[in-house]
């Protein structure tokens, strides 16, 4: 992230005293505190804190969220919220913070992701203020000599810098100070914020590890090459999320792991003619197995994460009665996780992922006689598949009416996922955005309705299956009563979703949309 042009580099060997004199020759300064600062910075695995234009750091018993640049809407460096925290946390979820402003500010930024230690910085800091004719402070300056402390305890000195922090309502004065540093003193602007520089010098990646799949494809490239590129990136995502899944750092690791596996499986099916059938069958089986062994743990993660919504859906006087249900779900989640972790740590899991990656890397060099789509242009193959799956969905959806059993909705939803992955992974880089984006939007609306319908159906079945176990716990009878109310609400919502199906399906499968799909993809 650009440091909002507020950081300037000082010559490497300059002392903070000399630097102060240098600036004092040009600016009216007020002396502040000189101190040693030890800060530990945090971010989520995928860099949500940095993406929000803020910084999370622990210093001297306090965890703070600070504006890192103009994106936060606050003056740079301004503390937006803070909370007392005696020790620097090893891993922190928003709901583990005490209620208060920091939790309120952090929750929308990181949601269910955990804050993890990012970098440990020790600095010598001399604070100065630029003042106006009224002796009012109008710009804050910090002369900083920072050093990164690596995980092994090694100290890496970074180049000293002048950091500028604007004071609200004094933008003109900030611009004048910047002009003075740029033009009069000729100080070079820092390319990175001190945090970003520290992350880079410690060997980290700016912005964290993304699970996004943004592979550039060209319409005319061989389908097997394109498939290997997209699927290879999915292997990276699977591998990146596996350690956090096993360690239960936060629920998103398992979620992202499973989405990447599911997307891979969708492309295995849809692009099957670019692969040799026998080898593909083996890898499909292995990814299916990864999906199966991680399914129950993810389902229970969702129950526990969404429990507050469940609770809120029953009348207030019954909400606390659901505690035994939560206890059972948590217990089952731990059991499911133990079983999943055992499988994911196995040689089979490791081989399933690495052998698939190795296979993709040499796919292009394999004989082509049993891979009829291998050398065809990817836009042609992807267009055919998108068109075919879309037509299939239109057929399936048209057959649904008020008397249709739930299985038909479920099948349509599965098909919808297939289409969504095709559109996101191949449609977006190969076809016009003005067609793909609205199509994904209308598909998402349809999938939301189908998903709600399916989820409610499954949730009702799950609650019924847990009834006996819940009833055996203290407070079990009251919990069963509350679960009855919950089941009732879920069934009402399932019916509501059914009612919404026709309208959302019409939007997805209307004449104009069908024509557009035909023209674009066929």
């Amino acid at each position: 992230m650009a440091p909002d042009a507020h950081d300037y580099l000082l010559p490497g060997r300059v002392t903070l005293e000399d630097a102060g004199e240098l600036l004092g020759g040009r600016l009216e300064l007020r002396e502040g505190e000189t101190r040693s600062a030890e800060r530990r910075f945090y971010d989520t695995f995928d860099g949500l804190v940095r993406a929000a234009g803020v910084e999370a750091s622990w210093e001297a018993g306090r965890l703070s969220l600070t504006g890192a640049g103009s994106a936060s809407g606050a003056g740079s460096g301004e503390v937006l919220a803070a909370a007392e925290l005696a020790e620097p946390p090893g891993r922190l979820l928003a709901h583990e913070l005490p209620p208060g402003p920091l939790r309120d500010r952090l929750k929308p930024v990181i949601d269910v992701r955990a804050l993890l230690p990012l970098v440990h910085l020790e600095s010598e800091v001399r604070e100065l203020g630029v003042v106006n004719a009224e002796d009012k402070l109008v710009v804050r300056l910090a002369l900083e000599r920072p050093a990164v402390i690596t995980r092994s305890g090694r100290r890496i000195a970074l180049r000293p810098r002048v950091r500028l922090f604007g004071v609200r309502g004094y933008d003109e004065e900030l611009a004048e100070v910047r002009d003075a540093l740029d033009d009069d003193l000729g100080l070079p602007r820092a390319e990175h914020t001190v945090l970003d520089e520290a992350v880079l010098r410690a060997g980290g990646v700016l912005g964290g590890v993304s699970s996004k799949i943004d592979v550039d494809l060209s319409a005319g490239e061989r389908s097997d090459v394109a498939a290997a590129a997209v699927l290879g990136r999915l292997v990276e995502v699977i591998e990146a999320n596996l350690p956090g899944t096993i360690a239960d750092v936060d629920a998103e690791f398992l979620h992202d792991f499973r989405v990447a596996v599911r997307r891979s499986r969708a492309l295995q099916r849809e692009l099957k003619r670019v692969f040799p059938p026998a080898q593909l069958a083996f890898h499909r089986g292995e990814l299916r197995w990864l999906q199966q062994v991680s399914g129950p743990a993810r389902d229970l993660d969702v129950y526990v994460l969404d429990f507050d919504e469940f609770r809120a859906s029953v009348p207030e006087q019954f909400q606390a009665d659901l505690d035994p249900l939560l206890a059972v779900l948590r217990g089952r989640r731990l059991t499911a996780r133990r079983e999943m972790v055992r499988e994911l740590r196995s040689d089979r899991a490791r081989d399933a992922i690495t052998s698939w990656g190795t296979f993709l890397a040499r796919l292009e060099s394999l004989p082509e006689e049993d891979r009829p789509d291998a050398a065809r242009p990817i836009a042609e193959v992807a267009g055919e598949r998108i068109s075919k799956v879309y037509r299939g969905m239109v057929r399936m959806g048209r057959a649904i009416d008020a008397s249709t059993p739930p299985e038909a909705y479920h099948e349509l939803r599965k098909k919808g996922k297939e289409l969504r992955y095709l559109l996101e992974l191949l449609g977006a880089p190969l076809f016009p955005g003005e067609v793909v984006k609205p199509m994904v939007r209308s598909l998402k609306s349809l999938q939301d309705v189908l998903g709600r319908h399916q989820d409610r159906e499954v949730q009702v079945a799950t609650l019924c299956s847990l009834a006996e176990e819940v009833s055996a716990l203290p407070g079990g009878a009251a919990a069963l009563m509350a679960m009855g109310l919950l089941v009732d609400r879920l069934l009402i919502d399932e019916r509501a979703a059914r009612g919404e199906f026709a309208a959302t399906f019409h939007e997805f499968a209307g004449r104009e949309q069908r024509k557009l799909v035909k023209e674009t993809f066929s």
Partner: protein
Amino acid sequence: MTRVLATYNIKGGVGKTSAAVNLSYLAARGGARTLLWDLDPQGASTYLFRIRPKVRGGGRRLIRLKTRPEDSIKGTDYLGLDLLPADFSYRHMDLALGGSKRPTNRLARVLAPLYKHYEYIFLDCPPSISLVSESVFEAADALLVPIIPATLSSRTFEQLEELVAGGPQVLAFFSMVEVRKSLHREVMAQLRARHVTMLGAAIPSADEVERMGVDRSVVAEIAPGGRAALSYEALWWDVKRRLDAAGVRDGVRSSAAGGSSA
């Protein structure tokens, strides 16, 4: 959750501005995002923070929601503490309020967009009983009332409690106390015995409080560890404790958030 606290007294020269400035400073120093709105056209708080007494478009447009308070807010020298400055046009604020619909919820509506940015909003009020003060009563969770321990103090206190009955919490504290004066000691003892909402901490009449106008700073910087600085810290601790015990007034936020802009 934002708390709106107004330093208020019908009388002038009792230590309202000193309390607003020092308590808002302490709130910010404690890590809470804090705003002080200097509602007094004399602009003493604004002067103490060395900020120009000017709001964009003037007080009338601000009150009528034609301009955004955010555009006039200035950062003070203290991290986490911002000021919405005074403006000389505030002397006509009663007229501006009088000409608007539901004048008494106007200040609350001006403040509504700021709730998400600040944990504490202090209102430094001019001394009067007027539409401005009624609007303050509707916006505030609590009135912080400095009282000089003199013969008519008890009467002032009782009048005020009657005036705001059903409104904000009234948290009165002794100000400009001279413990050597037996009259001050007697009045303090009487009032403390009679009023449960009388705060324990008392602000002494001290040089460092008077020096605020000369040094244009807070007592914690003029005389750190001095009697006045410690008294304000004790007072802030007591205020927070009472606020936590009382919760936020129902309806203040919702009535401010609702309604169309004029």
